[in-house]
């Protein structure tokens, strides 16, 4: 079953550690905002839960359906934004998450892009009524990639019916 392969560079110990013991894992009781990115058909979905007080991310949690890197990326990202201003959280790039993980193999970068995409969706949704200045109106790269992934799979999927 060779499709699941082609990993020229493997995980860092940090990825493995966060996969083993994820921080900030699980549903949040009464979050201020929840957002999801990815699609089950793609094999990766990340849900981000945020609690925001006075423009500060006071709590961040995640759930992940995906590979070890996906889980680690979501966990690392929530850890990185906790206690930060929302504006700062917004400015975290996928590269920062990858760095935090000690690097990601090229084919695993989409995991941190997806995590950032999910977070930005959450933030955008939090501000859907009242957009702060720093929030671009155009979708950022990470958000667009999340969208693309979701749409791509629909196209690939075509008429196929899940028999689950």
């Amino acid at each position, binding site marked *: *079953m060779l*499709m699941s392969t082609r990993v020229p560079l493997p*995980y860092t110990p940090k990825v493995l550690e966060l996969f083993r013991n994820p921080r900030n894992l699980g549903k949040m009781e009464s979050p201020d905002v929840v957002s999801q990115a990815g699609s*089950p058909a793609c094999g990766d979905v990340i849900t981000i839960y945020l609690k925001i007080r006075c423009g500060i991310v006071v709590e961040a949690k995640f759930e992940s*359906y995906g590979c*070890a890197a996906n889980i680690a990326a979501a966990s690392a990202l929530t850890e990185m934004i906790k206690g930060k201003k929302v504006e700062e959280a917004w400015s975290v790039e996928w590269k920062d998450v990858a760095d935090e993980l000690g*690097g990601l193999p090229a*084919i695993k970068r989409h995991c941190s892009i997806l995590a950032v995409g999910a977070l930005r969706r959450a933030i955008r949704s939090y501000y859907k009524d009242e957009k702060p200045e720093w929030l671009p109106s155009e979708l950022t790269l990470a958000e667009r990639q999340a969208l693309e992934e979701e749409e791509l799979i629909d196209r690939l999927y075509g008429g196929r019916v*899940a*028999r689950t």
Partner: protein
Amino acid sequence: MSGRVRELLKSHGTPPREVYLDNENSGWVPPEVVEATLPYFNVKGYGHPSITNKPGWEALELILEFKELLSSVINGEPENVHITHSGTEANNLAILGVKRRGKVIVSDVEHYSVLLPALTLDAVRAPVDEQGFIDLDVLSQLVDSETVLVSVQAVNHEIGTIQPVKEVYEVVKDRNPDALVHVDACDALGRVELNSDYADLMTFSSHKVLGPKGAGALYTKVKLEPPLKGALSTETLWPGVENVPAVAGFKKALELYLEDDLEELRRKRDKLIKGLLSIPDTLLNGPRDRRAPDNVNVSFLRVEGEAITVELSMRGIYVSSGSACTSRLLEPSHVMLAIGRSYEEAHGSVMFKLTRYLTWEDVDYVLEQVPEAIERLRNISPL
């Protein structure tokens, strides 16, 4: 780069108990098989099998012994056995080597080493049912006077479906006696009966029967044009020197494989399947009957396969998945899709290939660990 892998392995650690079940992708080679290869590195037969000196003749002796063994297993002729370095190469030789050009038909669940060369020849894909069995009626309609080659594997490498190759052969020849039938028997050797009467070409691979990597074989009754060129040895269809120690290992491994207690394998397989299906939201991939005795393949819904392989690895259970999570191509196993699995189902698929070295205690260990692993991952998942 290797330093990073070293770090990862350090952080992974060595689990107290290890059960290797990824024999489909890479066979664990038994010590007695390794033992059989050793003389051929530097004690005897380390020469070139077509050179006229003692180490060369010793190499030739081994090559001939191997051909005699393999051909006897399939009721064929030793001269028809050709040696390559892998099953992939033997399949490429079969598909690309047929001299006549025309319509090529392959089943929808062939191994990539059949499917991809065939697609370069604009092959037509014959559909399979939800358990992976080829549709003989459709096949019969596909075969026409233009057809030069039909390739159908004897046992599917992912879901263990045992194809009715005799019926395939008869259907094809009935429609067009000149069409050649290629049977990829890599996963069938030593597991189901094989007869060269019902194939014009047949592929085998050493490491699929727990031989060392580095040897494959193509049985062919017809002349082929080798896709690669170079100096020939006693082997005339694949250039370069035969990997004699690997062939020695292939021979020994096959001898052992032929002695396997298939009934016992089946019982272990069935216990594993039953135990795994008792995990909620788990599907069996492939048939219950007419399934290779060593193949187990299930899909765990709402978990992604690569995560399962890592999770199980840390528990000392080594498996693979048909997920596409890492490929970024979004394309999971084509076999899963061909049998009608959804993408999600394919992503959660896990395959186990059993060998005689899997003990009943190993089976129990797997059935203790896998449910825990799946539960942990499902608790992480938002689905």
